[in-house]
């Protein structure tokens, strides 16, 4: 039971980061490595603010804003300084490692026994005692759904249309008299804002910040996005954003099963890598099949 619960808790929290990568990787077609730094950035800010006694709900918008600034910087490096997409992300990711250490003050900052978004007076008052063990899942679900619906709404606006257009066909964005560079910067800001928001929630669920907690986040996010978009390709009633959330849950479930089958938690990165490779291979094979039927 606790295993299933933790799959849902972490799957939902990581889903927000996966939605961010969906924006950058799928919509913008930009491999954004910044996420490995912006995810722990959200966590570092959150741990720092909570130890200072801030209201835990305030950490959500603050983390989002900080992540958005990081993404914007990656975008500026790429667009204005003309550094290649992958490298601009790696530069920011490396820089953020130090920034995160500075914010938290040390490599590991625990926030046990403090109020957080999953455990505070307000949540305890709303959720009855009998459901107390589901508190984290319920709060994570609510926040993830809010984020998902905001993203759905945004993608249906004129500004969202431009974001989709720039990943689809840059030429048309220019033809419409819009600077494609700023649209990319905006998309990266959103993507890394989501990653930091996800990191903020993860730190509160784990009740600590660790400077290495961001390593491999991009891979987890990409795996979730690819699982979600390939598995549910044919399911028309599901929005792509919902597929990505479910993809994140499936990914966490796969990892949980692997660990249950006797793998050590130190093997986690290897499991992640193998799983990701598997998903990529299976995912692209499907694509080929679709093409050949045309």
């Amino acid at each position, binding site marked *: 039971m606790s295993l299933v619960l933790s799959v849902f808790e972490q799957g939902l929290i990581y889903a927000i980061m996966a939605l961010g990568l969906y924006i950058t990787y799928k919509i913008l077609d930009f491999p954004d490595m910044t996420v490995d730094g912006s995810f722990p950035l959200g966590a570092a800010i959150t741990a720092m603010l909570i130890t200072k006694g801030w209201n835990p709900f305030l950490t959500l918008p603050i983390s989002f804003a900080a992540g958005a600034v990081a993404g914007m910087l990656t975008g500026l490096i790429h667009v204005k300084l003309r550094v290649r997409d992958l490298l601009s992300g790696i530069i920011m990711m490396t820089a953020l490692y130090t920034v995160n250490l500075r914010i938290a003050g040390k490599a590991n900052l625990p926030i046990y026994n403090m109020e957080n978004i999953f455990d505070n007076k307000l949540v305890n008052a709303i959720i009855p005692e009998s459901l107390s063990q589901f508190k984290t899942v319920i709060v994570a679900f609510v926040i993830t759904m809010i984020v998902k619906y905001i993203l759905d709404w*945004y993608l*249906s*606006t*004129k*500004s*969202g*249309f*431009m974001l*989709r*257009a720039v990943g*689809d*066909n840059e*030429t*048309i*964005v*220019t*033809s*419409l*008299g*819009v*600077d*494609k560079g700023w649209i990319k910067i905006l998309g990266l800001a959103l993507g890394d804002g989501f990653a930091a928001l996800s990191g903020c929630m993860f730190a509160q669920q784990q009740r600590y910040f660790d400077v290495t907690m961001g390593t491999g986040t991009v891979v987890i996010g990409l795996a979730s996005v690819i699982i979600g978009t390939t598995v549910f390709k044919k399911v028309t009633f599901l929005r792509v954003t919902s597929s990505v959330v479910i993809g994140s849950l499936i990914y966490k479930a796969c990892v949980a099963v692997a660990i249950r089958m006797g793998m050590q938690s130190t093997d986690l990165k290897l499991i992640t890598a193998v799983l990701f490779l598997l998903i990529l291979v299976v995912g692209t094979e499907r694509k080929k099949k679709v093409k050949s039927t045309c």
Partner: protein
Amino acid sequence: MLELQHIHKFFNPGSVNEICLFDDFNLTVKDGEFVSVVGSNGSGKTSMLNIICGSIDIDHGQILIDGKDYAGKKDFVRSRQIGRVFQDPSKGTCPQMTILENMSIAENKGKPFNLTRGVNKAHIDYYREMLAHLNLGLEDKMHTPVGALSGGQRQAVALLMATMTPIDFLILDEHTAALDPKTAEIIMQLTDQVVREKKVTTIMVTHNLRYAVEYGSRLLMMHEGKVILDKAGEEKKNVDTEEIMKIFNQISVECGN
């Protein structure tokens, strides 16, 4: 009115691969003209369009639109006055977005892309009418991603999109070259119809000499960065394809083609 004055453009300046594309190139296009441009490969036709649209920068010279110099302005700034249809049908539309969404962004050109709804439901009937006008059956496919359409259908949508908002110039860059002969014919007739209806100043680059002779009010032939033939008005009406073909063959022989 569009005036290209004393345009100089070198590729790879200062290196052994230095290529002079334009050396003091001049061209004036009057309002309402429909200029067809022909010429061999490498004659500078497409580069000329790229220079007008700002896709490539010039070394010297002026690009005057109604007397205002646009040289040095960013491509997306110039795009606000210019509609462009490319040779590659995938360049004029967004493949993953539906016809409806594509037309919605095209109609919003020149206005801010803000947080209001992307598709204006009140305009759907208007779009449908425009699509029905094409006679390609697209009015029933408004929720289909454009990527699922054929090249000709996509080019037709691209043409509609390029001319939806008021523009000063329509730039057609070999826009029928990637299509089969029958579809190319349909798109060409459609182009003529749109240009007449909107009375928009048009520059069309084509490899099809017959189109260049049949359509448009002025014919230009380019060779090695120079205009070597320029016929407008009555003169243009009396030009026939064979005559153009003869001149064209002559310059091609010089190039060794």
